[in-house]
């Protein structure tokens, strides 16, 4: 079921579009409403120039529980209308409001114009660019009716079905189930020629669902977690997540202290994705060419831009294990990619060779004679193998099995050396078997080192990666499809107390 559509006028006639508030039955804005808002804003502009509007709306159905009881169930929604007025002789001004009645929109447009007038100097985003080829947006379904229609009753039922087994065994469970749906649209009054028209995207509806659960024993001596996010609620199986969290809690109780040091690690897919996030943020081409980050190779004396030396990059060089290919495909719905002005499949690492770093359109025009940006690793797939986690365990003499990492922080931009913690299940593997639960450890390691020390790879799967996870602000979060893997000599530097 798509969001309700209303009949909308096509003219720019202000009278044709009545003043209104968000209607009770309208959980997210329809295409007609968004287009009507944009037309209203364009018609309200005074003083010439260009008007750029971003319209977003969202609804969320949430259920949170802890200590085996639901602590809050909620239904929330909001709207965001961003208006940018660009007046060539003055400047540009931005105003955002969450109201779209006539008076609010007019006041917002006037305020944006005052802001434009108050700007220090006329600004124009990259003057004189050739028109950007019109983007072709893949018709990816990132909308799922099963997500949008998941009711509060359903969330309550699922929570009870996850709580009961944990409670029956005397454990404390906590968890979160969320349906999230929204719309977004960006449109310029000067489409397709204006400076802002290049970032136009059509109206799109999207959904995102997530379910996660933590099970702890009453004494706080064991903790297990499992979670998954997807645009499609149907692809999440809460029962299996609940069973996994419970099993991990049981198996992680009464951990022993293990000396820090280098260990062979078997990383479950969630742990791999947690660590890979550090790489996602490092992939900017302009950084590499100015000598920063892990992808700068050497200064090139023959190349200079103005006074600045240009560095040769590692593009084209084999930088990680040749079994690893990492790509991005906007048409893969599992990556939950919202439309961007320019979308195309990109391969970042091809059989271990660095093949692409991301850049903006300005850079492409100036340096590459290319009239389009290149997208970064926001939404990526990593290749894998066929070895199951059980087989990795069976073939390990001594190593550690890691559920996930937490609190990751990059320490050195040049090597991506990072530190972070293991969380919710860490076990020692000896002679092909899990021998005991281990107290959590702090690691100090680079994901690049990990990607060069791979022994075995499993089948790639989607992991818990809600697009907006406020707990991990430092490094951008992105949907990911990654394999479990086994790697050598992973460095753990201290034990921590937290369970």
């Amino acid at each position, binding site marked *: 079921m798509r969001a309700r559509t209303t009949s909308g006028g096509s003219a720019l006639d202000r009278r044709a579009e009545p003043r209104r508030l*968000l209607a009770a039955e309208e959980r997210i804005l329809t295409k007609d409403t968004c287009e009507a808002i944009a037309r209203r804003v364009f018609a309200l502009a005074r003083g010439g120039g260009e008007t750029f509007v971003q319209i977003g709306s969202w609804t969320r159905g949430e259920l949170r529980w802890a200590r085996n009881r639901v602590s809050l169930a909620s239904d929330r929604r909001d709207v965001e209308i961003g208006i940018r007025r660009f007046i060539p002789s003055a400047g540009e001004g931005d105003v955002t409001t969450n109201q779209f009645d006539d*008076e609010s929109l007019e006041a917002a447009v006037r305020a944006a114009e005052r802001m434009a007038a108050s700007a220090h100097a006329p600004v124009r985003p990259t003057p004189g660019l050739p028109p950007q080829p019109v983007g072709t947006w893949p018709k990816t379904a990132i909308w799922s009716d099963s997500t949008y229609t998941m009711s509060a009753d359903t969330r309550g039922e699922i929570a009870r079905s996850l709580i009961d087994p944990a409670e029956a065994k005397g454990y404390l469970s906590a968890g979160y189930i969320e349906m999230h749906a929204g719309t977004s649209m960006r449109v310029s009054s000067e489409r397709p020629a204006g400076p802002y028209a290049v970032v136009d995207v059509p109206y799109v509806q999207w959904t995102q669902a997530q379910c996660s659960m933590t099970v702890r024993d009453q004494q706080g001596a064991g903790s297990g977690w499992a979670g998954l996010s997807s645009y499609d609620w149907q692809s999440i199986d809460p029962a299996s997540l609940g069973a996994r969290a419970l099993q991990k809690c049981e198996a992680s109780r009464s951990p022993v202290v293990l000396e820090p040091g280098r260990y062979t690690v078997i990383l479950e897919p969630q742990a791999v994705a947690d660590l890979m996030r550090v790489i996602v943020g490092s992939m900017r081409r302009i950084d590499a060419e100015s000598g920063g980050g892990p992808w700068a190779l050497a200064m090139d004396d023959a190349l200079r831009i103005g006074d600045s030396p240009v560095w040769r990059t590692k593009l084209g060089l084999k930088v990680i294990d040749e079994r690893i290919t990492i790509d991005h495909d906007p048409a893969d719905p599992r990556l939950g990619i919202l439309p961007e002005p320019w979308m195309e499949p990109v391969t970042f690492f091809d059989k271990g060779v660095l093949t692409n770093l991301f850049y903006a359109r300005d850079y492409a025009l100036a340096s590459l004679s290319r009239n389009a940006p290149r997208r970064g690793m926001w939404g990526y797939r990593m290749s894998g193998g066929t070895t199951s986690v059980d087989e990795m365990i069976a073939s390990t003499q001594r190593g550690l099995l890691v559920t996930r990492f937490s609190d990751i922080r990059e320490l050195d931009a040049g090597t991506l050396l990072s530190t972070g913690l293991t969380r919710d299940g860490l076990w020692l593997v000896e002679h092909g078997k899990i021998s005991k639960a281990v107290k959590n450890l702090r690691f100090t390691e680079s994901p690049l080192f990990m990607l060069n020390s791979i022994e075995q790879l499993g089948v790639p799967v989607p992991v818990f990666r809600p697009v907006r996870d406020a707990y991990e602000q430092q490094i951008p979060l992105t949907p990911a499809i990654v394999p479990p893997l086994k790697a050598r000599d992973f460095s753990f530097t201290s034990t921590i107390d937290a369970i």
Partner: protein
Amino acid sequence: MLITRRSLLHSGLKVGVATAAVAALPRPLLAQLGRTLEPLPPIEDPRLKALTARALEAARSAGASYADVRLTHERVRVFSVSTRVDDSESMLAGVRALVDGYWGFASSPVWSPDEMARLAREAVHQAKTNTLGKPRAVDLAPTPVVAEGHWEMPLAIDPFETSPFEISDFLDSLIVYLNRTPNAKINSDSCTAVVQERAFASTLGSYCTQRCYRTAGAFSFERELEHGQRGSTYLDCLTAAGMGWELYTAERIPRVRDHTLYEEIDRALEELKQDLLLPVKAVEVGRYQAVFDPVTVAGILDETIGRATELDRALGYEANAGGTSYLNDPIAMLGSYQAGAPTLTVTAERSEAGAVGTVKWDDEGVAPDAFPLVKNGVLADFQTTRESARWLEAAYTKHGIPMRSHGCAAAPSAVFAPLQHTPNLTLAPGHDARDFDSLVSGIVRGIAVKSGSVDLDFQHSSGLGSGRLYEVKQGKRVARLAGGFLFRATDLWKSLQALGGEGGLRRYGLSAMKGEPAQEHYHSVTAPAAVVKDLTIIDPLRKA
């Protein structure tokens, strides 16, 4: 007619009112208080009470045993890189309902009687779906009814009544001032001002409205010396405060800065220069006596005591999100657990003028009190709301502490349900009038840490710290160290040897994330410099 900066400035000079008009935001947001839409009135308008009453009635008749409703109208103005001003404005409404021990919540951006009723019914529906589960009890701690209250955070200069030209010109002047120093370069420069008007009503009969402000800035820069030494620093006196534009323009602000902002820039430039002239050394891993500056102490205090004494976190309510707490048995630990040295006393409150977590009433209509979290080294209490205060009843009875909410319910806006968030914290200073430098002068061989920040584990126990580390010999900082430090929360506070005096207290506005869905909340932490023994210094870049 084209509006230009010049014409606006011109009219602004002639008529003061015009300047205010320039500053005015898109004020005519509409609310439906009666039958028709009308411009949104100020929060103290008595008709808003009728709007909230509609929600409470609807919640009651749908079956809620308790309900509350919040309206928020927020304006945000961001000045960045001296050239741009971004404004945003939102109005939101949220209704929370309690049915048989289960909470439901609903929120939206519409202020109208019909929407109030819909939100109330939805909140009750959300709660009821979970009453199908096993019984859950909520027994809200008693709180006095606020029959009719209005409060405005006191401030000297309302940033929304000040011309944005004046503000951006002042921000420019800081950069011009900085640029007088050769090879000094601005890295980031922004100022954010927020005003939030809030109305709260509950079925208890309380109704109160308030207007709260938050102003914060970023000003960081780098400097290169003659021989190529380069470094960067920032002004730590611009963190979020419950203040207006005076955060920038005041000559001095008690507990924030003793000098004008220009003098603060001079001081930071000079300090950076002295820093850069020190040699850089590799760390010798080991345990050292260490002096922390106030910002480092504030950060450590917040991440250890501040997070760990959130009662809901300690009991596992955040287990699936940010984590739990090393204070894992609150009832037994309250009144007996040794959290630190006897000199450690930490109080919490939401009433200090200028602090960013300050309110008259919290998001449950409770007037917050000042209460000790740690008294003479012993855990004395936890941060609570009306629901969670009751969880401590046994401990409160045992220790003769009155059972009440400490007023720690909060949320960023009415679109979020209230959650327990950290109030303002103050670490009681030492008796001697000593500051960071005088504490350093008393160290024979040790470490000094400035501008430190810490990452704690998900029980806020084991920490990793970083910042500007110095080797101290015979009371002097003699070298910069490329190092970090490791600590355990309780060991660190037990190893506290000295605290700076009252005059050296500094207040910082910090924010913390909590909950699912995640909420960000601001509070202030006030701390002096401190000396600890046996701090473990490491080389953070060294692998195993």
